[in-house]
């Protein structure tokens, strides 16, 4: 009897049940992420024209910018004014393009469109609110006055930048 009691007391004192807090830690810091959601595709509606407009058979580029903290960054988009690769072209190319605000995660971001600054082929947006903003970039190239573009593949580069203020 005494042996059994001693064993039970020993077991109770030896096995300790410990409750330990296991914290999950995280850090929110200001940062900007540039998400390339859709690369644009040029449609070829006319012999002399390449365009990302859906009506012309193209696809506009869509870029999302996420900022974790308000008013830390500005976004800058440069639509193409030359081909990065193409067949040899003997005449000039007339470029047009634009960047507009698409979807927004916070209603107030819609105001970015009215406040944007445009110069040359660059469009700047002041990212005053935290969250995600989708930007749509379009590009059109017209060869010569109405000359036919030589056959081949054409590639142009859109530059999306997030710059700390």
């Amino acid at each position, binding site marked *: 009897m005494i042996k059994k009691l001693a064993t039970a007391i020993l077991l109770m004192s030896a096995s300790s049940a410990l409750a330990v807090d296991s914290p999950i830690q995280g850090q929110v*810091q*200001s*940062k*900007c*992420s*540039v*998400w*390339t*959601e859709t*690369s*644009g*595709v*040029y449609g*070829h509606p006319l012999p002399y024209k*390449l365009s*990302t407009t859906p009506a012309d058979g193209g696809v506009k*580029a869509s*870029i*999302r910018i*996420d900022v974790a*903290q308000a008013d*830390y*960054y500005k976004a800058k988009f440069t639509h*193409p004014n030359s081909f*990065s*690769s193409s067949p040899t072209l003997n005449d000039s190319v007339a470029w047009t393009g634009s960047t507009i605000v698409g979807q927004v995660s916070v209603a107030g971001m819609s105001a970015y469109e009215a406040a944007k600054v445009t110069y040359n082929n660059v469009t700047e947006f002041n990212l005053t609110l935290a969250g995600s903003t989708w930007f749509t*970039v379009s*590009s059109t190239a017209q060869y010569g006055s109405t000359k036919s573009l030589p056959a081949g*593949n*054409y*590639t*142009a*580069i*859109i*530059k*999306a*930048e*997030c*710059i*700390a*203020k």
Partner: protein
Amino acid sequence: MYSKIIIALGFVFCTSLNAHEMTPTYPKLVPSYIEGVSVAKMKLFNRRNDVEYYEIGVFTNNWKALPFASTTKVIKIGYNKAKLFEVYIRSRDVAKAVYICTESKVYKSTEQVTLISSRICSKIKQDK
């Protein structure tokens, strides 16, 4: 109901998202182990599956390139990987250095497309 779920699942699985991130937003230059050279520690995160290389650049307030040193000026980084890197700037250039940037290097495409090059610039925190 089911068609909506199928469309939503299709969107989730078929849309590939790609991102470029760099922190901190405001790096601080501190003296390095080399006399007359300051260093900033940066972290690059590549979530672009179409990009493997990022070029580092240091610029003035007017976007004039400044000389700097790092283990490599073009970082090779895999998809969904983060990389820490250090940027060394001569002390005499510290006052002029304003931005540290990383820019994606896109592959030459054989399709009729617009490629997207991303660049993120952090602003150096200057001690007053």
